[in-house]
């Protein structure tokens, strides 16, 4: 029997997106529209867990799309478990076929998400990769480029400055020390970048207090403020999401993990918006 494309593909995704109680971006619960999300580049990294970094990036880009924000991913990860596309395989246009160049995800009624696999060297300062790229954000109308970074110091030191860094870390001493070291390098590389911290599962611990200690030390030594977005929750739905290659934000059944994730995404987007409001353009 001839295999026909199913018109109903994504129906559950559509329901999930359109019937969600979350406001779409630029719209508050009271119906008022807010200022547009600030365009820019966001570097995402999780030094201790590249696979969690990929998971987070994949979900963040879809959450942005769900809120009508045109976003794309530049994937500079080098290890297979840190790549974004395996986590979104079932959603990719023409999935199952090998294709060159960027791959896209189209969910009905939402902006197209584009994923471009790139070598780390293409993002190093001096290569003029951004200017030379035919798919530059401005011409394509993408508001945000999420950089799925190679999670090491060297990449940050060499790469082009980004507007925001989002670092995912565990809460043990060594992971926090590693995070502090990364923040220090981020600060040297791009003093104006905003750094956001997400804890990777810190259940049962006083997360705000841990963050306050980290933020206090960063402020004292680097004279820099950092923001806290919350903690990821690990549960069965997260495991299913990875196993089924379907991002958590698209799973129809709400779970603690998906609520935590969407909360983090919301705080991040609100935080960027607030920052834009404070900065005179």
């Amino acid at each position, binding site marked *: 029997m001839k295999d026909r494309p199913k018109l109903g593909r994504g129906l559950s995704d559509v329901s999930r997106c359109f019937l969600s109680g979350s406001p779409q971006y630029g719209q508050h619960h009271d119906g008022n529209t807010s200022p547009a999300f600030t365009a820019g580049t966001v570097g995402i990294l999780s030094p201790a867990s590249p696979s969690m970094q990929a998971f987070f990036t994949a979900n963040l880009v879809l959450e942005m799309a769900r809120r009508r924000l045109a976003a794309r991913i530049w994937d500079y990860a080098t290890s297979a478990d840190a790549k974004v596309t395996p986590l979104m395989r079932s959603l990719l246009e023409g999935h199952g076929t090998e294709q060159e160049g960027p791959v896209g995800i189209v969910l009905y009624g939402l902006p197209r998400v584009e994923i471009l696999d790139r070598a780390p060297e293409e993002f190093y300062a001096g290569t003029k990769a951004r200017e030379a790229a035919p798919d530059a954000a401005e011409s394509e109308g993408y508001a945000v480029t999420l950089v799925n970074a190679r999670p090491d110091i060297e990449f940050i030191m060499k790469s082009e400055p980004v507007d925001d860094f989002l670092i995912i870390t565990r809460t043990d001493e060594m992971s926090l020390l590693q995070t*502090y070291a990364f923040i220090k390098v981020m600060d040297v590389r791009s003093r104006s970048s905003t750094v956001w911290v997400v804890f990777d599962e810190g259940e049962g611990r006083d997360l705000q207090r841990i963050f*306050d200690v980290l933020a206090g030390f960063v402020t004292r030594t680097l004279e820099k403020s950092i923001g806290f977005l919350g903690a990821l929750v*690990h549960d069965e739905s997260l*495991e299913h999401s990875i196993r089924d290659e379907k991002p958590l934000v698209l799973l129809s059944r709400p779970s603690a993990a998906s609520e935590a994730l969407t909360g983090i995404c919301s705080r991040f987007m609100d935080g960027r918006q607030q920052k834009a409001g404070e900065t005179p353009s």
Partner: protein
Amino acid sequence: MMRVLTSIRLTDTAQAIRICARWLSEGLGLKVLEYRIGNVFTGSIDILATGAGRVHLVTVNTGRLGDALLEALTAYRWYLENREFLDRVYGTEGISLTGEPVLVLLSNEYPPEIRSIFLQGLKVEFRLFKYLVMGSEEAPELYVEELIPPGRSEETRVPDLDEIRRELGIEQAGLSDEEIGDFLAALRAG
């Protein structure tokens, strides 16, 4: 994300030795010179390695600990009797096999108090490592931890900051010893 890993027991001794040799090289920084020298009658060394100017005679236990201990001590005797020969075969300008060796035992189980038993009962230097193999026989993953000598808990150990920097991949961040100390103190005080 959380992965639930269950430990497995490797039945293929040669495979266990290969995996542990890789860890000795990548994790402990030793240079592996040879595998499985000798035999059960005269004593055999599972892995002959060098590092930090010392010869390391490594025994990998995949069966009963008592047998592995006897094998390690027999190997030690065999080494003492044959070290000139070994030096001629494996020694180079930078590597001498004539010195006092370190015995290394990797085992998936130890009885309690093993470390103090060794310290009181043996003169030769022993390093004991507990290993766990997880995943599957086809794609095993190795976890190794060293048994800390009694009276020297993790908390009282003086941390090697260069090692910490290396493990965390933050050498290039330029954190001073004082900065790391202050950071850890702030975390503990908070």
